[in-house]
């Protein structure tokens, strides 16, 4: 329990926080290994240890960091790198909007900090657990993922990438695997199936024609808005605890 963190009365959070950590364990090894890969690659590209750690803590968004390092090494303009980072990470807008209502009653100073930890994996873990997502599950998961990533980067800096080709061990597949598993447990109503399948089809079609990560943002926005427009309103308050 962290007294003073929230204004309103809430159930004890330490147990839920731990649950969030445990729920993220399927991802910790892969996040860690990709952290080591990033650390290894970034020093090879010529960044200093402080720069690699600084980027991992301050940006903390793996995909955009993997994109930025070769751009830095190749001499791309700073503005181009920053804009690319922004575009790659635009999907956070949707995740932040979804998570935000769960954090009613939290102090603003904590929200400012917790916002920085928003990541794909913790978002997936939290929304699959309950709707609306539990804030403490999310925070527990974010701490686990953040620790695994930054820890991995540190190990990668010290030892070089632990695994030179994570793909050989299927570790890259842990990411889509977790996302798919978390979709599977959320399909409760027929409308859920339509939304998920519609999103899958549109995302694949867009991924074939759009560069970078655009297909995620565009699909997430278009499919959720269209479905929210069409579905009857009573679906809004259907809460489905796991």
């Amino acid at each position, binding site marked *: 329990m962290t007294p003073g963190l929230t204004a309103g009365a809430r159930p004890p959070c330490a147990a839920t926080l731990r649950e969030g950590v445990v729920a993220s364990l*399927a991802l910790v090894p892969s996040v860690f290994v990709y952290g080591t890969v990033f650390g290894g690659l970034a020093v090879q590209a010529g*960044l200093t240890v402080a*720069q690699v750690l*600084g980027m991992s803590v301050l*940006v903390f968004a793996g995909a955009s960091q993997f994109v930025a390092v070769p751009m830095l090494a190749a001499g791309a303009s700073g503005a181009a*790198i*920053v*804009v690319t*980072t*922004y575009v790659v*990470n635009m*999907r956070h807008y*949707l995740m*932040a909007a979804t998570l*935000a*209502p769960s*954090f009613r009653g939290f102090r603003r100073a904590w929200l*400012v900090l917790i*916002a*920085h930890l*928003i990541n794909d994996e913790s978002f*997936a873990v939290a929304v*699959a657990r309950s*709707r609306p997502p539990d804030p403490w599950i999310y925070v527990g998961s974010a701490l686990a993922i953040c620790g695994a990533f930054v820890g991995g980067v540190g190990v990668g800096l010290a030892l070089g990438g632990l695994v030179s080709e994570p*793909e*050989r*061990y*299927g*570790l890259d*597949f*842990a*990411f*889509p*695997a977790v*996302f*798919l*598993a*978390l*979709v*599977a*447990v*959320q*399909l409760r109503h027929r409308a*859920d199936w339509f*939304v998920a399948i519609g*999103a*899958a089809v*549109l995302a*694949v079609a867009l991924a*074939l024609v759009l560069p970078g990560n655009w*297909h*995620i943002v565009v*699909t997430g*926005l278009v499919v*959720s808005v269209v*479905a*929210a427009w069409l579905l009857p*309103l009573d679906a*809004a*308050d259907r809460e489905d605890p796991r």
Partner: protein
Amino acid sequence: MRPDVWVVIVGMAVATYLTRAPMFLALAHRPLPPRVRLWLRLVPLAVLPALAVPLVLVRDGRLALGWRNPALWGAAVVFVLAARRVNLLASVAVAVAVVALLRALA
């Protein structure tokens, strides 16, 4: 290495924080209309397949629907296990092992 690395890193950090914080801070303390609550409930169902499925079906900018695509088998395995409420860690571990094995055999 170029001299502006720290400037770029801080720029990246600011750009990324701008994708995370505004919606998070704006919506945390506000009661939302039902249509918006419905929208937020549906966002994960749209975003998660959009994250996952292209990683499985798109390889080097082309559609990989053939049975020789290991990720397709891994996806089928993890989806069925998870739908049967097998533990997440176990489902993912089995799927990762299937993909690693099929890649080794290929």
